[in-house]
């Protein structure tokens, strides 16, 4: 970090340069950006509001891609079992998936970073206690823990987000603690402590900036994980409620008719899900190469 | 005069790094006769280890031997095929590295690593290879070699590990051994033991030995000939007496003068002012110029080697007498 400052390059510039240097990462970043923008603009772009029951025509259900509705609208990607335009449903679904993924990723980042900093700064028993907890969390697969939480505590959008946060904070905590330990070992921290500078100030002003590189990398990858995890949970029926369909739910609905040959209801949302997760992962991988090659993700 | 075992002329090994071309070895000439010990002395960064690696083709990319002739037993190693070079390594030319903990594979037994070295070059059974390995271990002074051969590297002390490394080097009774700072990582007492051991074995087996070190004292005790390396070039070479008693290059004199033994007790230690140039920032002409008290304008051009008998130096202003040396 200091090295970057000395060469006059901000981290942002370094990231940008790193991504642009790899054609693969650049393409992935562009895809990411496009999808995020599309999701944000869903209400504007989508030809149909899939939540508006008045617009959906049940008679238009199960139409293959390219079919036309009576009102002259083209169902580019076909319709689902309820008669909803797949394209619109997918856009809104992407929106939901992204929202949940980003929210849980962000919350996990905050929780994990705080705990990681505390562990590193306080050391001793607190550190041991927190890290034991982290090891425990990391010893269980995401899906299983999320599943158990949702079974015990019930379902709902916020419960899903909380379950994901509960699983993911450990990655952040571990990485931040590692980076912070490097800093706390340095003399200036000791000096600052002696001078009576408040701990929060030391943490925020000095230690935290050094934790940014691993945070950025892990944050990116965990967002991809969260999106995929939510999709899986929704597919299994214990994720988001059907009032807020994410891509996972769309695919689950499509599964029922897959064997009958109605492929578009599962293939397209799946491709979209794959696109967002894949591109985020590629960007995350590239970030790791640029910022922190030896990082444990 | 018998043909030299090893004759290196104009060796250049350069590393193509993103920041520029690092000329680690930039025109090195060496000669070694059978049964002779040559000390290659230089500070870190002088390129002495890379020289050692270059001889047997162990330079990793982005490094490459770009020029020079490496004549071993009459054959130019630079033109040898990879397979040919590989068959020489470990058989006719062996190498000993600095840190035996890092150079022995920690997850394999000593025996496994020795036996595979034997069988890489000779078509013998495992039992025969094992017997040979046990014998080699005994020769370097490892107690109870038949048991210890099944041990793992971490079960040996540092000095013992280095003996194992020496034993591996001696497995096929090579003609040439290149030892890269083999005693640097050991304590002084062990160091002298190993030195004595090596001297004895070298004399017994009549092998040629290149001993790479930064420690002039060690080389003085061990070698018959010495080559002083600075910034990728040999600045002085000759017999140990010639170089130590009548050094011609100011750097050599500085090295000799800065050893604690050469200093008067109670006086501040003498140092060579300044520090070695970084590999990418070498001055034009003589690399020692910025630190040399005798430097003039001509030193901005490349000094060629002056050879007087076996004693050679690269300097426009070689030191002439003993008085000059002591300043």
């Amino acid at each position, binding site marked *: 970090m200091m090295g970057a400052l000395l060469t006059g390059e901000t981290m942002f510039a370094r990231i940008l340069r790193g991504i642009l240097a790899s054609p*693969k990462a650049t393409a992935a970043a562009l895809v990411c950006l496009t999808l995020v923008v599309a999701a944000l603009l869903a209400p504007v772009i989508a030809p149909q509001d899939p939540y508006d029951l008045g617009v959906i025509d049940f008679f238009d259900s199960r139409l293959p891609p390219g079919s036309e509705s009576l009102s002259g609208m083209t169902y580019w990607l076909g319709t689902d079992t309820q008669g909803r335009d797949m394209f619109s449903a997918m856009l809104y679904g992407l929106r939901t998936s992204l929202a949940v993924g980003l929210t849980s990723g962000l919350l996990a980042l905050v929780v994990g970073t705080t705990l990681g900093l505390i562990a590193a700064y306080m050391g001793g028993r607190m550190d041991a206690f927190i*890290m*034991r907890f982290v090891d*425990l969390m*990391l*010893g*269980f*697969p995401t*899906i*299983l823990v999320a*599943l*158990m939480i949702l079974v*015990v505590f019930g379902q709902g959008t916020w419960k899903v987000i909380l379950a994901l946060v509960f699983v993911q904070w450990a*990655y952040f905590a571990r990485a931040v603690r590692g980076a912070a330990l490097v800093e706390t070992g340095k003399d200036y921290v000791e000096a600052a402590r002696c001078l009576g500078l408040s701990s929060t100030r030391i943490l925020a002003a000095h230690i935290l900036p050094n934790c940014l590189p691993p945070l950025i990398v892990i944050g990116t*990858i965990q967002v*991809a*994980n969260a999106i*995929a*995890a939510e*999709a*899986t949970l929704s*597919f*299994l*029926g*214990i994720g988001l409620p059907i009032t807020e369909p994410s891509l*996972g739910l769309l*695919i689950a609905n*499509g599964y029922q008719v*897959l*064997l009958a040959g109605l*492929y578009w209801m*599962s*293939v397209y949302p799946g491709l979209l*899900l794959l696109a967002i*997760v894949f591109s985020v*992962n*590629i960007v995350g991988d590239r970030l790791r190469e640029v910022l922190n090659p030896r990082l*444990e993700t | 005069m018998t043909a030299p075992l090893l004759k290196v002329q104009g060796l250049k090994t350069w590393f193509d790094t993103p920041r520029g071309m690092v000329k680690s070895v930039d025109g090195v000439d060496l000669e070694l006769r059978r049964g002779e010990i040559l000390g290659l002395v230089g500070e870190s960064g002088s390129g002495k280890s890379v020289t050692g690696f270059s001889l047997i083709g*162990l330079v*990793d990319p982005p490094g490459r031997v770009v020029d020079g002739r490496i004549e071993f037993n009459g054959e130019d190693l630079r033109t040898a095929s990879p397979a040919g070079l*590989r068959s*020489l*390594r*470990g*058989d006719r030319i062996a190498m000993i*590295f600095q840190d035996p903990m*890092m*150079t*022995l*594979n*920690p*997850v*394999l037994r000593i025996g496994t690593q020795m036996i*595979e*070295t034997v069988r*890489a070059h000779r078509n013998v059974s495992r039992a025969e290879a094992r017997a040979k390995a046990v014998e080699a271990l005994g020769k370097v002074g490892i107690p109870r070699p038949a048991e210890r051969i099944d041990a*793992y590297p*971490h*079960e040996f002390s540092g000095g013992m590990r280095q003996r194992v490394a020496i034993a*591996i080097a001696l497995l096929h009774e090579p003609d040439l051994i290149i030892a890269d700072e083999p005693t640097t990582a050991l304590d002084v007492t062990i160091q002298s033991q190993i030195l004595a051991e090596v001297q004895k074995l070298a004399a017994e087996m009549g092998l040629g030995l290149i001993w790479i070190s930064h420690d002039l004292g060690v080389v003085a005790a061990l070698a018959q000939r010495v080559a002083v390396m600075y910034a990728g070039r040999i600045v002085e070479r000759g017999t140990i007496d010639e170089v130590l008693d009548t050094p011609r290059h100011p750097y050599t004199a500085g090295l000799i003068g800065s050893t604690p033994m050469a200093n008067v007790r109670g006086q501040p230690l003498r140092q060579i002012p300044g520090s070695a140039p970084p590999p990418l920032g070498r001055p034009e002409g003589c690399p020692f110029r910025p630190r040399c008290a005798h430097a003039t304008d001509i030193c901005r051009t490349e000094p060629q080697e002056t050879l007087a008998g076996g004693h050679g130096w690269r300097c426009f202003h070689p030191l002439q007498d003993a008085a000059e040396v002591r300043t």
Partner: protein
Amino acid sequence: MSLRNGKVNKQNGIHSGVGAAASAGGRGMTVFILRRLIQAVIVLLVTSVIVFLGVYAIGDPLEILLPGDATAAERAQVAASLNLDAPLPLQYVTFLTSALTGDFGSSFVFNRPALTVIFERLPATLELTITALVLSLVIGLPLGLWAGTRPGTLVDESVMTGSILGFSLPNFWQGMMLVMIFSVWLGWLPSTGRGETGTILGIRTSFATWDGVAHLILPATNLALAQIALVIRLTRTGVQETMPLDFVKFARARGLSERRILFVHVFKTILIPIVTVIGVEFGSLIAFAVVTETIFAWPGVGKLIIDSINALDRPVVVAYILVIVAMFIVINFLVDVLYSLLDPRIRGRA
């Protein structure tokens, strides 16, 4: 890395403990094992408390443990046996003691003890996960070695990008695509269920019959895919980090062939961390079996849990959670022991 929790160096947290303990001497190892056992018990207890609270405190235990159509008399009977009038801690004790004897209540759907139902289905899941694990090693290790020895080349790039794709592919969707391609369109392989089983070495397995194998291929592939990606990455990283090490250079200096260096020296060195990660990943496979079994209607424990959740067969759900947690703890523990055994540096001191 995705849901597979890039566990590349996750082990460091635990294994630094192993190393430290082991290097403290033989007694250190025993102390370490004991400490881990105690930790395991604590985790189990904590989980049981959470589950207990979820079932008994937050929900209405009668609701949960009785099927919807229970009569008032049955309700009263169960209420009495569960001691529902007693204070909560006492109820927990009842819960815990019956759990320890294996009594988790009776499954609503199957009308048999929940634990029995679970254990009946466990072999099918194990068959699936073990097959997937073996597949991932058989395919992943060679590809990882291949990519690792050619850093920066097209092979390396494509293998690595392929591996990212491998774990980006949503597990369930990929399974569905497999079904679509191989069952619906090509009609080569069956899409649901477990095939005929026979006995090999006294174990009932699908490998005994062609039908069994045919039914096993798609679900095993589905489960293995993300795992293959993980193994590839681990292996490749391992090779790339090991190749520049001094002992490789020394091996070359001794005249060993590149083949021997790769397949003996490098491979054995990277095998230790890979094996330990895979060991933990085995648990992950069991988790993902939930998805695979749902898609392919594979009669294992994973499908059971989803069905049970949907059918509100809570005794089975409760039993499943505790059994799985126990399994995980055992797996993690065994992996730690395995690691200390494999690494001669640690083993020698234990």
